[in-house]
């Protein structure tokens, strides 16, 4: 499937099943640097939502602070957004989701936002398996504050200013697997073919869906010697598989030789079709996912594609909250009333 040819076509502007054009998923002009990877990711999000026939107003865009966290201003203009404070998007999204479980929560963050100041919340939102899509636009640097190394910068990576990073980088994907994220993928802002189906699957996944997207910063970290430059990533990426997102109602037609492909069912019945699978990789096995990641790291490869997927209770299931969103309960549903208070008073006499 290609994102360039939506299944449903219209003489002029293609519309999706709910009658929206791609334009309905667009927003204000980006003010990021021309060529910034983040903008491509925003476009991929738009496209995924368009193709999944989600009404924009049922999507909530959540972010922290950084160039990456600004992107919600540049995609999905008809969705509500919450551009919060630095590193705290996970908690804000948790609260929002608890209040209204029926929106699609798409959180975008940066590597500074998530791996430095936001590390604590990042870890804990995974632990709670909050039902959301969490995309880190990972450029190995602090774009908005002019290019300092971030905690995901690889050891030895050279910044535009010429300094060599002396610390080991945090691998967000393996960290997510370790911490029990129920959907973990990795991709590249320059690879829409892979990114769009991954975002779709992430949206359809019930639980915490993490996508670590390498997204080069053209202004501060796209130089030779940087391991987050367009060139470097293009040369070093290695996919776990080719990937197709198949909506629930479509039939899966392609057939592949045994052992080379797999189908991963998502919560609502849609399917991720994985082709040309990497050897010895079982997307449902944590340890196998870890091995893939460690192996790739050893070979200086950037592993992309789906990495790990598991179905387990998301936060509302864990907390046993009502099926109806909490914001839909009326005063009558919530307030025990004067009568109950009499009984309560009596208990304190």
């Amino acid at each position, binding site marked *: 499937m290609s994102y360039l040819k939506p299944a449903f076509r219209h003489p002029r502007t293609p519309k999706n099943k709910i009658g929206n054009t791609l334009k309905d998923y667009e927003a204000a002009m980006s003010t990021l640097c021309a060529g910034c990877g983040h903008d491509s990711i925003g476009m991929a999000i738009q496209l995924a939502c368009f193709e999944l026939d989600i*009404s*924009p*107003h*049922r999507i*909530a*865009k*959540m972010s922290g602070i950084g160039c990456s966290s600004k992107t*919600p*201003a540049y995609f999905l*203009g*008809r*969705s*509500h*957004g*919450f*551009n*919060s*404070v630095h590193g*705290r998007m*996970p*908690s*804000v*999204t*948790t*609260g*929002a*989701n*608890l*209040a*209204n479980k*029926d*929106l699609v929560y798409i959180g975008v963050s940066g590597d500074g936002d998530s791996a430095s100041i936001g590390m*604590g*919340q990042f*870890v*804990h939102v995974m632990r*709670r398996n909050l039902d959301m899509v969490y995309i880190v636009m990972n450029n190995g640097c602090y774009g908005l504050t002019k290019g300092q190394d971030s905690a995901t910068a690889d050891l030895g990576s050279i910044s535009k200013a010429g300094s060599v990073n002396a610390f080991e980088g945090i691998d967000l994907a393996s960290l997510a697997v370790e911490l029990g994220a129920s959907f973990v993928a990795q991709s590249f802002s320059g690879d829409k073919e892979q990114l769009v189906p991954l975002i779709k699957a992430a949206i359809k996944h019930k639980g915490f869906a993490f996508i670590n997207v390498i997204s080069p910063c053209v202004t501060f970290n796209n130089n030779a010697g940087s391991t987050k430059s367009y060139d470097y990533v293009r040369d070093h990426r290695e996919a776990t598989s080719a990937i197709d997102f198949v909506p629930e109602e479509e039939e899966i037609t392609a057939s592949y030789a045994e052992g080379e492909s797999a189908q991963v069912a998502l919560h609502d019945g849609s399917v991720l079709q994985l082709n040309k699978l990497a050897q010895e990789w079982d997307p449902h096995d944590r340890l196998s996912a870890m091995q893939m990641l460690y192996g790739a790291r050893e070979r200086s490869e950037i592993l992309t594609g789906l990495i790990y997927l598991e179905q387990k209770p998301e*936060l*509302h299931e864990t*907390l*046993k*909250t*009502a*099926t109806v969103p*909490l*914001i839909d*309960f009326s*005063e009558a*549903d*919530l*307030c*025990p*009333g*004067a009568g*109950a*208070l009499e009984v*309560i*008073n009596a208990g*304190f*006499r």
Partner: protein
Amino acid sequence: MTQRVGINDFVVRFANVNGTGSASANNLFAKAIFRMGIPISPKNIFPSNIQGLPTWYEIRVSEEGYLGRREGVDLMVSVNPQSMLQDVSSVKPGGFFVYDDTKPLSPGFVREDITYIGIPMTEMSNKTFTNPRVRQLLKNIIYVGGLAVLIDLDINEIERLLTEQFEKKPHLMADNLKALHLGIDYVREHIAYPLPIRLERRNLLSDSIMVDGNLGCGLGAVYAGATVVAWYPITPSTSVAEAYAQYARVHRVDPETGKHRYAIVQAEDELAAIGMVLGATWAGARAFTATSGPGVSLMNEFLGLAYFAELPAVLIDVQRTGPSTGMPTRTQQSDLLLAAYASHGDTKHVLLFPSDPTECFELTALSFDLADRFQTPIMLMTDLDLGMNDYVTRPFAWDDGRQYDRGKHYSAEELTELVSYGRYLDLDGDGVTYRNTPGAHPSIGAYTTRGTSRDEYARYTEDSRAYKRNMERLALKWETIKGEVPKARIYEPEGDTEYGMLFFGTSTQAAEEARDLLAKDGINLNAIRILAFPFGPEAIAFIDAHRQVFVIEQNRDAQMRSMLLIEAGIEPTKLVPVLHYDGMPITADTIVRQINDYFTTKHRDSHELSKTSI
């Protein structure tokens, strides 16, 4: 030696070791007095550890209804050898010292001016019971029995309370009764009773309840329709979330499906807790957090976001003794300045000051209305004394006709009819603008909430004029709020006087008593109790109308006084600080002493305090 005398007017203090189950015995004792219809105020004075250190439980009995703490102990019940020396010395001359005479009293502990009463609690308990844990627990019930006889506490009330408590555990009941009567019998046989300080039934409290403030807060939040609670454990606020949970489990679980109409998250820290609250109110829910000083410090950045992005939030700050970790199990009113001006940049926050558990309930419930109406954080400034001690207080009340005030908020239908929607458009000229719920309308009303500056249509801007317009509107909103928060309570004037006293929260009981005591000494003071920040015009008028106002508060730096100076344009010499900040609840004596000092020294006209840093 003259023994202390008094009917329904004395202080009993229990000296125990924490983690030994003394709390429930002491509560039993207090509750039985309460059931006799006599006003009491119990205070727990406990260490910041879990087991093995001294802990005290102090009950003031006051038929006159003075429920502030009072210094000095009339009757000490000493069950902790660790603290015995200190305990002996805190008894007032003429007072009584009940102790465990299983071991003889060491001569160093003997004072000439108090009466010693030995009860061999340990011995009796060990003789009667075998299980070591049970022995320890029931030793406490033994002294309750003994005391009951000594001070004429109604034994039927105690037995009734035990019956209620052990309804479902009859085997425990029997042992408890046995222990109780061991104590009763021992005193009846060996000691002259009753003591000159004793109880007489009064039935003054037909309607009152006895409960702590944190329970009031948690219950108030359930009643106000809070559905999302995010918190991080910290003494003394923990029991707020626990109380909410307790009542939500009863009243908010669908009996058929077992599904909850609420969500409680124990967050990873306070930053996350307040973040969750803001996410939840943004999405349209009512939400709150409860914490104490260190948590409020950590929430600073988010509080600024909430102020500026105009998000409702309710924060219950159960204050404890600061700064820093300070004394986590002691009380203080010292987070005022922090809370009022939390976060960088120009910010101001609404504070409410409950002074008893009933107000904790009422003001917590009101907080949610105010938060929705003004789209800003509302902080309930309670404290350890109020939050964790039982108070005899008016029963909780709820008017079934009351409706949640969700403030200015467009429904999807209303949005459809708008020509254009501007999240920050001041349509009514009161600085308060219209929200809408994310996801409600397919094409109108979507905007991005942010901490950066934006125009009336919520569009990002760095335009100086748009920024300034917004800041001016927020200042206007602040003016609007002044008229909408609970008004200060002005007391009946006390004769003809140019002097007033101003207080709030848990200084109330002691201040009221001090006022009466001073009046008896011929010093008349008018009085006002502040219920909210920002201050309403009635509070300013009160101060303006007096030559001098004593501002009573439980902190070192006269923080409420500072806020009055900043916000109300009051001449500093007018506001005389009366301060107490050692971590114990304030007493009437402290207040009386400081006010008397003021009148008897030269300070009268140009008091020093107002000129120095206080």
